């Protein structure tokens, strides 16, 4: 058997005199390294083409833990270093990995950990709701904070400027023209061509990481279900899986399968809605009407079978909240057949539409190289040759027993992203058929066990947008002391700044929709 990248990485660290004390969180190795080696360790990981997945920090008694999660071939490694409070700084990894940039700024804004040579000194999540040198995630910062009567707008963010003959700037947002989430986009354009785009996010920062502290497992699951409403199932699953790991709770296999069913249903619902919306962004109403009809018909039975149209709060610590009976299984299987037939009509009709072709092909190109550099995940990555799917590469129940057909495209344009999603609907239909017809008997919820003090959990779940990372630590009495969730949007958003380059301004909406980052999931 060939050597895993983890072994190679470990050897590489050792041969570079980077000692890494090894422990683990469940089956993810955790390597504790010296903070002075933080950047060097990232450099060596990059040499092995590992992907930078997520970063977060945590305040301890008089020091801080800083974490960076890396992955290759489905094998994850968690790097950790501890930095003393009096000297709260360490070298940045974002000089090596672009994906670490916003994450390090997030950590700096909320905890005051200073990454010395982070190339970007601008705040990221912090606008004007708290003062400079205040850090909301610190233990001495009260949840209520000290808000002003009216929080002033964040006017002074130092956007990159472009100058020259005919160059002009377009500020867009935070409030947008459609029914969408708020965020700011700053364009520099010449004529209709976009020269540069900069995102400024953080408008929907709700203090989720702070709100998580001291919650019970049930309450944390509810909060996680509201990180990004469109991924409510996937986020709740990730948080529950992390908590279950920490508490050594094994969920019944029926519960795992029901979670899988809910998650694939969520994938289909979002793909249906978004494919329609993308077509609508280029004025093709037929697809919008058909797909939004299918989506509605898809959501309605969920109220009965899962207790909620969007299946919110369906996943709970230890299992799921509702069981489905044989009739419901039959009904859902029938609905899958109908959906397939409908798609067999609609998909060829949109495939052969020349106006759609004209607008979607070659628009919003993301090269495989850029996709890899940014570590993008989900359908955005898979449309640019990034062959990664947590369900297949780091399988968890119920996917470990199922055949996962990961869809891959390589053109990297808006059309590719649409086609990945079309094909993923068909793949999910197949998965659902298997899961519904082989649903194991048994309980739907395991009894909860109080985890040991300081127990940690780390989960990776493939939501419809891609890989979700969820980290929890408990304190002594079944309460959460730290929760961090990395929505796929965090790593996908920066790619939009590249996707739109040299496109025309009127194509921005369709480029944006084809990536469809969650603002709420990103801003926490």
């Amino acid at each position, binding site marked *: 058997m060939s050597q895993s990248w983890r072994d190679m990485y470990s050897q590489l660290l050792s041969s570079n005199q980077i000692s890494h004390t090894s422990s683990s969180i469940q089956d993810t190795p955790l390597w504790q390294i010296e903070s002075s080696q933080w950047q060097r360790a990232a450099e060596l990981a990059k040499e092995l083409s590992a992907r930078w997945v997520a970063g977060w920090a945590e305040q301890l008694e008089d020091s801080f833990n800083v974490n960076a999660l890396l992955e290759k071939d489905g094998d994850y490694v968690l790097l950790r270093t501890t930095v003393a409070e009096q000297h709260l700084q360490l070298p940045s990894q974002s000089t090596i990995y672009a994906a670490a940039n916003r994450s390090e700024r997030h950590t700096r804004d909320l905890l005051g950990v200073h990454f010395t040579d982070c190339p970007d000194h601008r705040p990221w999540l912090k606008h004007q709701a708290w003062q400079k040198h205040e850090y909301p995630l610190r233990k001495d910062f009260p949840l209520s904070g000290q808000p002003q009567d*009216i929080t002033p707008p964040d006017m002074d963010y130092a956007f990159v400027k472009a100058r020259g003959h005919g160059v002009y700037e377009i500020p867009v947002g935070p409030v947008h023209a*459609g029914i969408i989430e708020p965020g700011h986009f700053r364009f520099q354009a010449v004529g209709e061509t976009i020269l540069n785009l900069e995102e400024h996010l953080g408008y929907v920062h709700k*203090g989720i990481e*702070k709100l998580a502290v001291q919650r019970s497992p049930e309450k944390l699951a509810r909060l996680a279900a509201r990180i990004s409403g469109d991924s409510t199932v996937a986020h709740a699953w990730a948080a529950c899986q992390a908590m279950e790991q920490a508490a050594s709770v094994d969920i019944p296999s029926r519960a795992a399968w029901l979670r899988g069913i809910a998650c694939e249903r969520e994938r289909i619902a979002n793909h249906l809605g978004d494919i329609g919306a993308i077509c609508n962004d280029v004025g093709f109403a037929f697809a919008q009407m058909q797909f939004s009809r299918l989506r*509605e018909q898809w959501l309605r039975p969920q109220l009965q079978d899962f207790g909620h149209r*969007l299946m919110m709060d369906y996943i709970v610590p230890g299992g799921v909240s509702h069981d489905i009976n044989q009739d419901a299984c039959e009904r859902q299987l029938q609905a899958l057949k109908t959906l397939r037939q409908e798609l067999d009509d609609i998909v060829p*009709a949109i495939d052969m539409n020349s106006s759609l072709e004209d607008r979607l092909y070659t628009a919003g190109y993301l090269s495989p190289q850029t996709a890899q550099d940014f570590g993008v995940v989900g359908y955005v990555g898979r449309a640019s040759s990034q062959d990664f799917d947590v369900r297949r590469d780091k399988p968890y129940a119920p996917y470990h027993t199922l055949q996962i057909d990961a869809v891959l495209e390589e053109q990297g344009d808006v059309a590719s992203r649409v086609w990945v999603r079309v094909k993923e609907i068909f793949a999910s239909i197949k998965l659902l058929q298997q899961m519904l017809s082989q649903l194991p008997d048994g309980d739907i919820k395991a009894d909860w066990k109080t985890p040991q003090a300081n127990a940690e959990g780390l989960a990776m779940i493939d939501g419809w947008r891609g890989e979700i990372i969820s980290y929890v630590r408990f304190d002594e009495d079944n309460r959460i002391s730290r929760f961090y969730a990395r929505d796929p949007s965090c790593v996908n958003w920066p790619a939009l700044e590249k996707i739109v380059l040299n496109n025309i301004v009127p194509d921005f909406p369709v480029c944006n929709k084809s990536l469809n980052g969650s603002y709420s999931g990103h801003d926490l």
Partner: protein
Amino acid sequence: MLRLFSKTLKTGVVTERIKKPAADELEQLGIEVKQQIDRHFKGSLAIRAVDAGSCNGCELEIHALNNPIYDIERFGIHFAASPRHADVLLVTGPVSRHMQSALLRVWQATPEPKWVIAAGDCAVCGGEFGESYACCGSVDKVVPVDVAIPGCPPTPEMLLKGILGLINGAKTRSQPSDARQK
């Protein structure tokens, strides 16, 4: 093109029918909404949706109002792209502090007479997020609210009911929204 027409014909009209109002609450609601809009808004009501920190769950259901099954436009209600074209602001989310000024500006940019609907538990009472260093805690802490639609998220039917409630209330209200300057 043929495929397109054939699918369109085969799909037919899926919009839930107006014939049997008693059997279908949505329709009943819609008809009432339509009558009121005709009477008080000359047949058209323009809504501006403002996300003030929602988790985006509420947006999904607001979107659903535009699908061919609810087809809210048939009642004369449409979503405007600018607050300057709006009669009603439909606000979601617990109003993140980073959105507070933006929401105020949108409200100020909406011409009188104007109404505000707070949609979803977050907008109504803070929901899962409440009041904190990051959230104002509800819409009415920032701008005056005329109608509150609870739910997490409210279903499309509940949203439609809420809009009806607003219109019924609007008839009786003599003053436009008190110009509480914040």
